[in-house]
C-alpha cells in the first residue's frame, strides 16, 4: 500500500517524535509513504484573513498530489481538515474550480477532481484496517492506561469527513489504543477542543480550554494523553507547565502521539519512536519497553 506524505509546517520542525514514530509504524504495516518535495503550507493560517487565498494554497498542494495518483496522508489535523475541505469544494463547485485553476496556471499547475485526503490516523482505520494492524502487534501494552484526545479537525466538519466516526462520540482512537492491549480511558473530555486556535489571540481563554482537558485526564490518573495533532500538542504539552502555574494547580499529564504508542506494540523501542523528544514524559513507560 502506498500514500503520499504531506508534512505540513509544524510537524517536520517541532514534532520530530510524531513524524519518526509515524514513519516507523507505516514501515511495520507495509505502508509506503512517498515524499513530495514541492509541498508547502496547507492554507489553514490564511482562512481567517482571506478564504480565497487559503483555498489557493490548499489547491496548489492538491494539484501537486494529483500528479502521483496516490491518496494524500498528513499527521496534522489542521492540514487534513483544510485540504479535505478544499478538495470537497473544488470537487463540488465547478465555478470555484475554474477560478482556482486559472490562478494555478501561473504556476504551471492544475487541479483535477478526485484527490483523496486523509488524516494519517483515519488512513490507519479505514484503509489499512484495524484487523491488519492488530495482526502485526508483537507485544502487549496491557496494564497501561491512556486517554484518547481526538481534537476537532480529525472528525469535523462531518460533512467533509464523511461519517467514518461519530463527531459527538468518537470511537476510532479508543479502538486504536485498545488493539495495543492498553486500556482506553473515557475521561468525559476526549472530544474537547484544546483551544489552540485562540492561542495567538487570547491566551488566557486558550489556556482555560486546555486546563479543563488536562484536569479531566489528570483526575483519572492516566499514564498519558494520546494526541494526533501538532496544535493540540502546542497547547497540551507545550503550554502545560505554564497552565499549571497560571491556575496554581499541580498538573502533570504525560503526552504522547498515537504512533508512539502503536509503535511500542509493533516492537519498536522508545528511542526509535523519539520518546526522548517528548517534553512531559512518562519515564516508567519508556523504561518498561526500553
Amino acid at each position: 500500500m502506498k500514500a503520499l506524505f504531506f508534512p505540513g509546517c509544524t510537524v517536520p520542525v517541532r514534532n520530530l517524535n510524531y513524524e519518526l514514530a509515524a514513519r516507523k509504524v507505516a514501515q511495520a504495516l507495509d505502508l509506503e509513504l512517498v515524499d513530495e518535495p514541492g509541498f508547502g503550507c496547507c492554507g489553514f493560517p490564511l482562512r481567517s484573513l482571506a478564504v480565497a487565498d487559503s483555498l489557493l494554497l490548499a489547491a496548489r498542494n492538491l494539484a501537486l498530489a494529483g500528479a502521483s495518483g496516490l491518496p494524500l496522508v498528513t499527521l496534522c489535523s489542521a492540514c487534513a481538515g483544510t485540504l479535505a475541505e478544499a478538495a470537497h469544494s473544488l470537487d463540488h463547485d465547478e465555478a470555484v474550480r475554474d477560478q482556482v485553476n486559472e490562478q494555478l496556471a501561473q504556476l504551471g499547475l492544475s487541479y483535477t477532481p478526485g484527490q483523496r485526503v486523509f488524516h494519517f490516523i483515519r488512513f490507519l482505520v479505514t484503509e489499512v484496517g484495524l484487523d491488519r494492524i492488530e495482526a502485526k502487534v508483537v507485544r502487549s501494552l496491557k496494564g497501561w492506561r491512556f486517554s484518547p484526545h481526538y481534537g476537532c479537525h480529525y472528525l469535523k466538519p462531518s460533512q467533509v469527513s464523511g461519517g467514518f466516526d461519530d463527531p459527538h462520540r468518537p470511537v476510532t482512537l479508543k479502538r486504536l489504543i485498545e488493539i495495543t492491549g492498553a486500556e482506553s480511558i473515557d475521561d468525559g473530555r476526549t472530544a474537547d477542543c484544546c483551544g489552540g486556535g485562540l492561542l495567538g489571540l487570547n491566551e488566557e481563554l486558550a489556556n482555560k480550554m486546555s486546563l479543563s482537558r488536562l484536569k479531566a485526564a489528570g483526575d483519572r490518573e492516566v499514564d498519558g494523553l494520546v494526541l494526533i495533532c501538532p496544535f493540540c500538542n502546542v497547547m497540551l504539552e507545550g503550554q502545560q507547565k505554564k497552565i499549571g502555574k497560571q491556575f496554581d494547580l499541580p498538573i502533570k499529564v504525560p503526552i504522547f502521539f498515537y504512533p508512539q504508542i502503536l509503535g511500542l506494540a509493533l516492537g519498536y523501542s522508545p528511542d526509535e519512536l523519539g520518546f526522548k523528544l517528548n517534553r512531559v514524559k512518562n519515564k516508567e513507560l519508556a523504561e518498561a519497553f526500553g
Partner: protein
Amino acid sequence: MAEAVIDLSRADLGLAEEVAARPGGASLRACFTCGACTAACQVHRQGPDYDPRRIIRLVLLGQREEVLSSPFIWQCATCYSCQEICPMGVRFADLSFVLKNLAVEEGYSPPSLTAQVELLRGHGRLYEITDFENQKRTDLGLPEIREKAADFQVMLADLSGRLAGRAEAESEA
C-alpha cells in the same frame, strides 16, 4: 458587544446579504435563535461572554460596525461543535471566517495573523527551514525538507498588497 441594547437606527440591512453572498455564508438566514450553537460552544463554556447566537443576531440586525470591530469574532476556535449540532444547518464556523475576512477588509485584523502572510511569502511555510532543522532531521534518519517560496511569492502578492494598502490607509487616517 457588551452593550445589551441593539440600536436599530444604525442597522445596515445590507450586511446580512453581503455575508450570505460569500462562500460559507449562505446558511445564515436559517437561524431561528434556538441557541444550540451557544450551548455546544466550547469557547462559551470557558468564556461565557462569547456567544455565537448573539453574533448571528447582530449580523441579521445589520450591526456592521459593532460586529466587525468586535474582539469576539476572533474568538471562534473553529472546533465546529456549533456547526455539528445546529438543527437548521447553519454553518457558524464558516460564518466566522466570513466575518473575519470582512473585518480584515475593513481594517480590523490582528497583527499576529497578517505577520503570517509575510512568513509564508518568504518561506512557503510557517517556519523557516535552515541547515539546523535539516541536520536535526538527518540525525534522526528523516528526509530533508526544502523551502519552495517562489510559488508563494506569486500566490500571495495580491493579498500582501491588499493588507499593505489597508495599513497605509490606516496610518494616513
